[in-house]
């Protein structure tokens, strides 16, 4: 019980706890910029040259194995998977092209942390959404609930766990940059606080409106994310879905909040009906 209490308080610190404690303002968690002093990253697709230094740095830092073919030759993964936390993809058509980086978006109000029945996923106040594998039961609800299809599974393991970017929470706690942004040679990927990243993103859009698609992806999507994107083409083409601003935990929480009322309401109604239908003995025997 002590652990749970501590966990709740920790989450409360992240702002999502406002959902746990009904006495606080529930909406606060949904307001983007709530985590403006928390860690964030900005990916500028127009500056990315597709060198994949970030991808390699991620594998090294996280100790993830390379994907090999049957001759033990290194194979490039085609998507995020149980061994790949981040990946650079290329969009190309006849007129234009753009690289795009994929990894966990570290939502301000993450669906995964909200739906996990054992609280194995946690939004830390510092920004990263981290995964506690020792709690996980392997229900894979986080995988279905994530609007970005981020959590991946170790399907070939007998005791599989979820794999996803942890935003180098340990490095950031030690005052260092995440491995991927530290490795980026062109400045396409930079890290800092969410407020700084948003300021830079909007500055670039204002300075070069001709070069950019006029939208900072992640500023408001599902309540905002700690990974922010600017790009030269539409985000749909880069594989980023058009999402509403409502955080996913805000959809389910009103229903979960109603559960005690449903429980006691139903019990009360049933008791009342019981006394009504059994109000005289003869009827009961009849």
């Amino acid at each position: 019980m002590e652990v749970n209490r501590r966990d709740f308080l920790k989450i409360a610190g992240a702002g999502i706890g406002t959902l746990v404690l009904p006495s606080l303002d529930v909406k606060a968690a949904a307001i983007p910029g709530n985590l403006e002093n928390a860690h964030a990253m900005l990916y500028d697709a127009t500056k990315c040259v597709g060198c994949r230094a970030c991808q390699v740095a991620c594998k090294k830092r996280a100790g993830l194995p390379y994907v090999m073919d049957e001759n033990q030759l290194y194979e490039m993964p085609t998507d995020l998977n149980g061994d790949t936390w981040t990946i650079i993809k290329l969009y190309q058509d006849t007129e234009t092209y753009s690289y795009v980086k994929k990894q966990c978006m570290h939502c301000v109000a993450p669906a995964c942390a909200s739906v996990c029945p054992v609280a194995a996923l946690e939004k830390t106040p510092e920004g990263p959404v981290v995964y506690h594998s020792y709690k996980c039961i392997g229900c894979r609800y986080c995988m279905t609930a994530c609007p970005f299809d981020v959590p991946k599974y170790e399907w070939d393991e007998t005791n599989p766990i979820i794999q996803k970017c942890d935003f180098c929470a340990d490095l950031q706690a030690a005052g260092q940059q995440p491995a991927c942004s530290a490795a980026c040679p062109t400045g396409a990927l930079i890290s800092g606080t969410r407020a700084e990243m948003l300021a830079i993103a909007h500055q670039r859009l204002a300075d070069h409106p001709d070069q950019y698609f006029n939208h900072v992806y992640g500023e408001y999507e599902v309540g905002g994310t700690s990974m922010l994107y600017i790009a030269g083409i539409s985000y749909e083409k880069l594989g980023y879905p058009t999402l509403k601003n409502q955080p996913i935990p805000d959809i389910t929480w009103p229903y979960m909040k109603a559960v005690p009322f449903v429980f006691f309401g139903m019990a009360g109604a049933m008791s009342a009906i019981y006394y009504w239908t059994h109000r005289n003995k003869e009827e009961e025997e009849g």
Partner: protein
Amino acid sequence: MATGVNNIRLRKYPVGVGMIIVWIAGAIGLSVAAYRWIVGLRITNMSDNRPWGIWISFDMMSGIGLAAGAFSIAAIVYIFNIKKLYPIVRPTILTGFISYILAALTLLADLGLPQNIWHLIIYWNIHSPLFEIGWCVMVYTTVLLLEFSPVVLEALGWKAPLKLIQSITIPLVILGISLSTMHQSTLGTMLLAMPYRIHPFWYSPLMPVYFFLTAIAAGMAMTVFESYHSARTYQQKFEIGIASKITSWIPYVLGLYLVIKVVDVIVSGTYIYLIQDPWPTFMFLIEIMGGALIPALMFADKRVRSNPSGLVWASFLLMGGLILNRFNSTLVFMNGDFYFPSAAEIAVSIGLTCLGIIMFDAAIRFLPMYPNPREKQASKSLENAA
């Protein structure tokens, strides 16, 4: 009267070919499940972009939905005081109890780390619909065990614990109704976390209500379906009066469901997909017409309700409607990679269903499944059969 295990005697119903096949399929399914614990989930066709397969859609979502008969029949008999249905309480409670055991066994196959399932007890997340479902299922399975225990205690001739359980029957039934209302609807809430994944025909803020209503209706249909088949298998008289009485309420439940659903489709504007997406439209119409509207009309007709095969067919359609609904909303029209279950997944699903039949059969053979007033009649027909 002697008490104890010696008291339990085997009722000698004939063992048919069907039952032998069920035993074999059950053995195969359990062996594959055991193999899965050795090698992991690689024997399934689930993947990163299709993390839930038929174990979730069929065994969990549909199985729990069809088990709703246990709480609605208990409510009708004990709370609404309609004594006429009393004879089917025991088989219905048993069916529910077995369904929840099967759901737990399914989880042990489907969870990536089944050895950690008890973590639900120590790590809490009150935000998670699945957390609530997990707790409700744990507690409700215990409630069903207690609701069913008088049958076992009676067989053993243990009077004192029997009296104790009987004295708390009503609180148990009310607890069971509350828990069922919660988790049947929360199975719908669970899917509300996927607004960008589920087709708008199925995704709706009212999904918890739909899941609850369809479970009540299909749970009653399951009760009728089960009592018809056990009457045939165990050479009992099919209680058509009872079946007719239960099913006479189904049109009201389904009618409410259909009215809300149609209003929902019109108000939310999802009817535009009726023209745009032919494949979802096709499945949606089959589900709504064949799985809800037609059974509702059939059950509303007294001629259908007074005819065993009419009752069984309508029940069959309604149960199929619930299963189709759960498949459509959790698998077929949930975005993801192409998926067709592997042989191992199918074997486990069939095997667990067969295990349910085996457990039911064993209970009928070893336990007094018919309540006191009918016991004499039951044993008489047994003598005749023997």
